[in-house]
């Protein structure tokens, strides 16, 4: 079922690339339309899975990635529609398609576990996934900022210069994405701590719950991520770390998020393996 959104994300990626290269408005409108259809199809897929397992599917790594991709697509569409700026699509859509290959290739088995069937668990995971989607956007905006900055600074006003938005626009959008992501990351981590306290009281012998501490690689990296983005938010306000520094911080931050998402989820056994 995850294949249809994958095909549509890939098609949107091609359309965004054509739009970026040729700057034809029709190609841009087509790209957005295809992405909207992809997001609809993905909503349908996730809706079906939700009905099947009675909660939003994110209890295994593949379905969590699928939900992350869906949230990222929605966040990006929101950004595009509010800023009227399509040039980021050429970076986001391939990322959506690339990540979506994982759930399409191996969907994983979504376990129905009564322990996970609680509103705070649901809030924990959805907040974190939304935070990561925001960080993904921030990272793309940050890298784009660096590209545009380099073109203007080095006076090579070439291919990207004409196609990318202004530095100011990119910086403001990056700041917003980081702030929103940080807020959701904080909520996700706090709710996670509350949930694990409640769950431990209900099932004191569960090995996973017992292992949930800073020694756990996934939790450790998540806290590290929180530390880094907290620094990014504070440094912007207090130390004037905007522009290129903020851009690099959000790129490094998202690399850590991806590290937590992919290798750690798949190859390291953690307390978060359900």
């Amino acid at each position: 079922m995850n294949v249809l959104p994958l095909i549509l994300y890939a098609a949107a990626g091609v359309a965004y690339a054509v739009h970026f290269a040729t700057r034809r408005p029709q190609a841009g409108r087509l790209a957005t339309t295809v992405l909207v259809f992809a997001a609809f199809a993905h909503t349908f897929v996730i809706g079906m899975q939700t009905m099947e397992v009675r909660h939003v599917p994110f209890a295994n790594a593949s379905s969590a990635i699928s939900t992350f991709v869906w949230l990222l697509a929605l966040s990006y569409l929101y950004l595009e529609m509010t800023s009227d700026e399509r040039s980021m699509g050429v970076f986001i859509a391939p990322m959506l398609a690339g990540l979506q290959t994982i759930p399409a290739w191996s969907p994983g088995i979504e376990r129905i576990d009564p322990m996970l069937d609680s509103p705070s668990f649901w809030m924990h995971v959805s907040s974190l996934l939304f935070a990561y989607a925001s960080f993904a956007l921030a990272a793309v905006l940050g890298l784009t900022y660096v590209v545009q900055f380099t073109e203007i600074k080095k006076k090579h006003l070439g291919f990207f210069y004409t196609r990318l938005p202004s530095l100011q626009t990119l910086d403001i959008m990056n700041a917003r994405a980081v702030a929103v992501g940080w807020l959701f990351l904080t909520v996700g981590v706090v709710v996670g701590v509350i949930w694990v306290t409640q769950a431990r009281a209900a099932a004191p012998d569960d090995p996973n719950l017992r292992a949930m501490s800073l020694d756990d690689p996934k939790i450790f990296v998540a806290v590290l991520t929180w530390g880094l983005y907290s620094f990014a938010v504070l440094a912007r306000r207090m130390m004037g770390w905007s522009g290129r520094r903020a851009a690099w911080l959000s790129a490094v931050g998202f690399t850590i998020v991806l590290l937590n998402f992919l290798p750690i989820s798949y190859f390291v056994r953690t307390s978060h393996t359900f």
Partner: protein
Amino acid sequence: MHLFLLGVSHRTAPVDLRERLDFSSRDVGAAVETLAARASAAESVVLSTCNRSEIYVASSEPSRAREELIAFLSEYHQLPRDAFLPHLFTYDDTAAAHHLFRVSAGLDSLVIGEPQILGQVKDAYQAAADRHCTGPLLNKTFHWAFGVGKRVRSETGLGEGAVSVSFAAVALARKIFGRLQGRRVLVVGAGEIGALTAHHLRSHGVAEIVITSRTAAHAEALAAETGGRAVPWSDMPRAMGRADIVVTATGSQRPIITRAEVEAVTGRRRPDPLFIIDIAVPRDVDPAVGEIEQVFLYNIDDLQGIVQENLARRGGEIARAEAIVAEELSRFTAWQRSRRAIPTVIALRQRFDDIRRSELERLETKLGGLPPDARARVDEVTRLIVEKLLLEPTEQLKALPDEETQAVYTEAVSRLFRLGDGSDEPDASPMDERRRRK
């Protein structure tokens, strides 16, 4: 009805002649009205910019229109014919439309792709349309030309990139700051290019323009001209600390802005970018200033380099723009051809309808006994039969691929159905047709 164009442009006439034939400084509307009063120009539009004066007319006799337009130009501008005759160009029908499409696309401009021309063409048309001096032919042709201009703008890079130093500086500022509303500008020195750049920045809505010059009177004069504020020369560092964009254009022989001075106003105290445009030769700003993280430093050579690149890039887009013009022109001529078939089509329909009516009249005695609704149905059915019979031939006649074939076919149709001698005269109205037949 034929499209006819007569005019002078920067390609055919020197500037002093263009000035003498200029309509834009006087009332273009009055010129159009004077022109429309002449018998040979049923419709007319006068396009007048600093690079061209062109008169577009719809006329049934282009050769007569030519003579009348020359006389009009001579009278209106009080110039002897011989003064401008060698510089005139004239185009008929397709060539005239081709010229208008190229003009609207910016392909005939002095600076290829310049954006103002499309607006000027629209204004010229509007001035004529407001005075009811345009009709079916010019309405269609000009609206088509607006479409061509828009297509070229959106599908090619012909109008892209600044092609003057001051525009290049403004374009860069927009890539750094996005909207320029609310930004502060410091102009150091009161020279011509500095003033021009200040004007461009002002038109993009910057919040404040501060001007400083070693000669306070110069700074004050430029401040008055641009709606800015003059500050003493000694206040420059403080003004730079508040500015987002600094334009320097002094005649100083050595740099007046050093790295240390700029560092003192940037860094942690001021995280926002600072865009410094150094237009002066020799340079006013120490090149090392450009190494500061949030400072973007461009000198006159950098800006001129951008202008040259943009001009070269525009040159590379000409072929694509010409292809769009050619494509639209072929669609336009197809429309014109279909239009030429209209009188024949009208005459043909009239002939068939006359036959239908006379047959119904002949049968009146037999049909007279029918109830009114049945009688009306007979009328309706016969009318529908005639329409259906003529639908296909009409479409075919309109869609014929070239003028010669169309002339042969319309002639054949006219003869076969005895449509009368004047049936191939374009734009004959149904009323004219009826009158002729009586």
